[in-house]
């Protein structure tokens, strides 16, 4: 079960709205937080300014990460995340991008992505993706603890 929201790092506002709409159509949806660049994603996950307050900015259960992002790219966020101290480095990351490039796919997995999804071309396919995503990650997947001691 998800204990926190899903953090969606996506710079394209249209993509964000369409993804959000697809997830919102599902019954028992989950909370989606949106950030628009890699630097913000790193700041949020580290709890740095302006995200120190974890009550207002809760630790996500999962990151949905675009690769082509302003400032720090998705690859760089992934690389940073996997080098964090025990706990945070376990954060599940699902890449959601428009690239089907083999080199991109391989690099994402090499850097520790847990899954790699390609943005669907049509709304129908996106609805389908949202629904499958929810059943897998909400119903089937077991999440790790993000606390170092455990």
């Amino acid at each position, binding site marked *: 079960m998800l204990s926190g929201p899903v953090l969606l790092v996506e710079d394209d506002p249209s993509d964000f709205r369409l993804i959000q709409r697809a997830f919102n159509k599902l019954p028992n949806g989950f909370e989606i937080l949106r950030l628009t660049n890699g630097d913000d994603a790193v700041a949020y996950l580290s709890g740095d300014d302006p995200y120190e307050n974890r009550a207002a900015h809760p630790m996500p259960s999962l990151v949905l990460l675009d690769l082509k992002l302003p400032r720090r790219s998705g690859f760089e966020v992934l690389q940073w995340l996997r080098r964090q101290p025990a706990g945070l480095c376990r954060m599940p990351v699902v890449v959601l991008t*428009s690239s089907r490039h083999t080199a991109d796919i391989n690099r994402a997995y090499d850097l520790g992505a847990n899954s790699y999804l390609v943005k669907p071309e049509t709304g129908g396919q996106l609805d389908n993706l949202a629904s499958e995503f929810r059943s897998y990650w909400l119903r089937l997947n077991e999440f790790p603890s993000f606390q170092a001691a455990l």
Partner: protein
Amino acid sequence: MAEPLLAKPAALSAGLESPDVFRRLVYSVSDYAIFLLDPKGNVASWNPGAEKLKAYKAEEIIGKHFSVFYTPAALAIDRPNYELRVAAETGHFEDEGWRVRKDGSRFWSSIVITRVLDDGGRIIGFGQITRDLTELRESDLRYRLLIEGVADYAIFSMDSHGNITSWNTGAERIKGYKPEEIVGKHFSTFYTEEDRKAGLPEHVLRTAEQTGHFTGEGWRVRKNGSRFWASVVVTPLRDEEGNLCGFSKVTRDMSDRKALLDQLQQHAHELELRVRERDESNAELEAFAYSVSHDLRAPLRAISGFAEALHDEYRDRLDEVGRDYLNEVTSAAGRLNTLVQDLLEYGRVGRINMPLASVSVETAINGARRQLGELPPGTLSVAVPAGLQVRGYPQVLAQVIFNLLANGLKFHKPHAAPKVDISVETRNGMVRLNIRDNGIGIAPEHQERIWNVFERLHDRESYVGTGIGLAIVKRAMSRMNGSCGVDSKPGEGSTFWIELPCA
């Protein structure tokens, strides 16, 4: 004192301890003339070798002065007495020169005259050994003439320090010096100043001496200061004991060949530059196409996504015209999406850079069929032997077959159901897949250009498509070291074929 040597050795005499053993030895030598002279130079003894060489019998020559063996020219300068004087003063005299036989004919001989002393140190006579070197001298002379006559190669000899001792016609022609101008000079004269400063001449001699030869190419200088590209071989000359006595050097003027080589190298360099430029601009173009196609997809997702959202949520509030417009938007977005995907695929096929593998033809065909989806029964028939393998890329081959099958199914006659069959031919290590349809066919004048990107023969209303499918096929086949083509007549269907090496 000459008496004992005059007579034949006694018939009965025993062993090497016998006092006349040396007489016997001298008497048995027939290849060397060995005889004694008295202190004045009169012949005092004569052996069979002397008789054979000079043609005098012992009784004819004993008592005569040895100057009878000399040529008039030698006699004119009192050569015989000079030689005896040298032998008397220094102990021996050695020389090579012409001598005269009894019949007046000449022979080239090597002679050694040794003085013979008694116990009190007084000269009691001279011993002389003469050998016929005529044959040796003639072959030597022939050889020398041969070398001197060679015009294409500079052949010259040097002493052990590199001073020139002989000079042939070729050397004169190539380097421009006459023999009298250059013999005695050091061979470094032929080197450029830079090479001389760098110590190249010394290096050449040292290498030749140490390794048995030196070969090399480089610039050399003619008498007039002009340069030529030389190919040289330097070989050390050694005497019988192995002591270095000089060098031979063979030089060839390779300026013409050098110029050709330089030109060739220049062309190769230019070609390489051009290829590199082309590769770079190709890579840039590929990167550009990739980036454009990629970036086009984001707004495309938005167009189709929001068109669908509009359709889902606001369909009821649109009239028929509004819904028709919306359909146009959705369908245009769909077409654009296909186009972008095809372009990406076209680019991707061009960028493939991995080793070719063994691919099952059957598996590739099954992959293509899966992509096609469900077809009416009897539409597609496949006659391919199980286990047939070719060299290629599995997914690319499946994509190629899919494109060809999709084309065959698409371009059917307006009122006939499409039918496509796949067959195989194997020959000369190549596997050819024939994909034959019953469609509209292609006029001969169009059969070339259908393989170009964006080339379409029909309007969109008749047959949908991006005009990239066959371009992908052609590119993919070329990437897999294969080929492709078409046989077709309008109205009689088409047979597209692809060919790959057997695995």
